[in-house]
């Protein structure tokens, strides 16, 4: 049995789980409605108390939406942050905090970091199995977007072919990220520093001309402007990585004239080679790490937060389920006279039971469907906000987790809806007829 299950595709497994979650509620419905057709009557009752019913549907929709939104958002954030780190195989930096280096190198969050020397960079770049080793150089910005110095190889590695234009070929050229505030043909003078503390005139007299634009990567690099590492060093009054008179752009750099770099973004010629390089450069004077591993550790830590959020979502669902149950019992009082008329006219108890259950089921199913839409909408809005704030492309879409949550909620409430139906058929007919 386990082998059969394991042989199914993940989507099929998830679909079967969703069906299994729904099954108890659907089975209850099939038993209750067998041979009966109360729907016309239920529609009339729903119209009769349209506003109360609408309020009820909204209550269910908001609660379901909250659960769906939380789960979808959390997954979107996790996937977005992982996608942003995809282009970064191995990072080598001076010993310190891997998280700090990852935040700076992958997510372009400004921070003070120790530098690797030119000699250390040269050792990394010339090591066997290294396809490329790109230094990065921070410190400047334009219109709030970071200006990052690196190599042409890394630009191509990160974003593939440019969306338009050509890659930088001189110290005065730049390539804009997909959503950077400057574009091909623009010229700008970089400000020294970031944010409110940026000094706009610090590099007066020097300007870049944008020669191309990268395709979107879904990472904060989309808002950055990429320039030759040489120009960042030069503009800060340092040697530009090459011997005087050598105006090449990109590696190899001369260790004597290379001012140092906070991190080197390394790609091995073979995938397995990354592990050997990580091992080789993990030592007392430098550290090497996979950003994906650090991110997984962070996600692992966040897993507890996720568990807390899931618990909150579940608790909310339980509370709302109870509210729905109590609300349905109250709603039954609203329709008590109609039910009494049915019973006075000789309607079987089973039919009256089916009317009340169908009435409840209509509210639950409508609310749950609206909740799915609401949750997805809220998650998408929040994802857009996070993307704007962090430049990490967060996309929220419906996944099986949300569908399982909703299927479980629907099934449970459909079963609990048997209780108000049972309460309804216990009501005194004559007393309800007179009210």
């Amino acid at each position, binding site marked *: 049995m386990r082998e059969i299950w394991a042989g199914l595709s993940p989507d099929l497994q998830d679909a079967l789980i969703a069906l299994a979650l729904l099954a108890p509620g659907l089975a209850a419905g099939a038993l209750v409605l067998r041979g009966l057709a109360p729907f016309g009557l239920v529609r009339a009752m729903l119209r*009769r108390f349209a506003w109360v019913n609408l309020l009820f549907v909204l209550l269910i929709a908001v609660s379901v939406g909250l659960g769906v939104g939380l789960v979808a958002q959390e997954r979107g954030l996790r996937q977005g942050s992982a996608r942003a780190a995809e282009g970064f195989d191995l990072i080598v930096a001076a010993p310190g905090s891997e998280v700090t280096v990852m935040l700076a190198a992958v997510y372009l969050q400004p921070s003070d970091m120790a530098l690797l020397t030119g000699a250390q960079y040269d050792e990394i770049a010339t090591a066997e199995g290294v396809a490329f080793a790109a230094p990065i150089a921070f410190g400047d910005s334009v219109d709030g977007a970071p200006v990052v110095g690196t190599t042409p190889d890394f630009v191509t590695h990160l974003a593939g072919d440019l969306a338009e234009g050509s890659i930088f070929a001189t110290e005065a050229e730049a390539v804009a990220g997909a959503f950077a505030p400057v574009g091909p043909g623009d010229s700008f003078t970089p400000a020294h520093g970031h944010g409110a503390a940026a000094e706009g005139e610090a590099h007066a007299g020097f300007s870049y001309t944008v020669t191309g634009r990268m395709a979107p990567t879904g990472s904060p690099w989309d808002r950055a402007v990429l320039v030759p590492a040489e120009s960042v060093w030069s503009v800060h009054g340092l040697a530009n990585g090459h011997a005087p008179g050598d105006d090449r752009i990109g590696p190899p750099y001369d260790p004597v004239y290379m001012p140092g770099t906070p991190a080197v973004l390394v790609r091995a010629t073979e995938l397995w080679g990354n592990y050997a390089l990580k091992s080789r450069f993990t030592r007392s004077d430098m550290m090497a790490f996979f950003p994906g591993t650090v991110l997984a550790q962070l996600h692992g830590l966040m897993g507890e937060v996720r568990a807390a959020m899931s618990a909150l979502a579940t608790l909310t669902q339980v509370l709302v389920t109870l509210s729905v149950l109590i609300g349905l019992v109250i709603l039954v009082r609203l329709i008590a006279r109609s039910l009494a*008329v049915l019973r006075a006219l000789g309607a079987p108890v089973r039919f009256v039971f089916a009317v009340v259950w169908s009435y409840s089921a209509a509210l639950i199913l409508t609310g749950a469907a609206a909740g799915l839409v609401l949750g997805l909408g809220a998650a998408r809005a929040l994802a857009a906000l996070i993307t704007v704030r962090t430049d990490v492309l967060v996309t929220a879409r419906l996944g099986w987790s949300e569908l399982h949550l909703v299927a479980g909620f629907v099934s449970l409430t459909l079963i609990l809806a048997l209780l108000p139906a049972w309460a309804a058929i216990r009501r005194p007919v004559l007393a309800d007829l007179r009210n």
Partner: protein
Amino acid sequence: MPPSAASEPAGSRTAPGPAAPDLLVEALQVRDGGGRVLLAIDRLTLRAGQSLAVQGPSGAGKSTLLHVLSGLIRPATGRVVWGGTDIAALSEPARAAFRRNRLGLIFQDYNLFEELPALGNAALAAAFAPARDRAALRDRAAGWLDRLGLGAAGGRTVASFSGGERQRIAVARALAADPPVILADEPTASLDRAAADALGADLARLARDGGRTLVAVTHDPALAGLLQRRLAIADGRVVEDSDA
């Protein structure tokens, strides 16, 4: 709308017949929760096809009698025998089935489903009838609406009808299952004089022409005058019976 125009639609009973049961009420006592006697009748009989007006002051026990006759109240003691079936001895589901198949109920305040169309109300029983009977029930309900002057308005929701028209819809609902007995609780009390007279005439004619037994609780002397027999109740006891 032409008042008093009702006659039997196709598929309904057309003459007095054995299907309309005799009623025998014997040694009946109905008590409230505190044990107080609300209604006590030693013996009451009704011939099949006979129409009876139950009269008396408010609180006399008229409606209680109607509820006992319909099986909505189970008496503390005694028998309520319709055509050989003592409904006082039946279980709740069996009494519901009896009402469904043998009785047509008409209420003072119509008790219609406001958001359903006239035909949906008249054919309400189709909602809980076996699937094989639903089409026939709907056809008969449409036929009764037609005979009662509302055939063209079957698709309108009842909220748009006058009181008299609503009560006609309720009459069509009571007759849709072609029951041999009609029990009506103050059927004309919510209507103006003209509508009350028209409905009373229709009820009397439907009972007479269809051979149905009709029991109507009423304060309306005009309606009572149209029925064959009058029963006066006071303080839970029969004080006058025009057949006696």
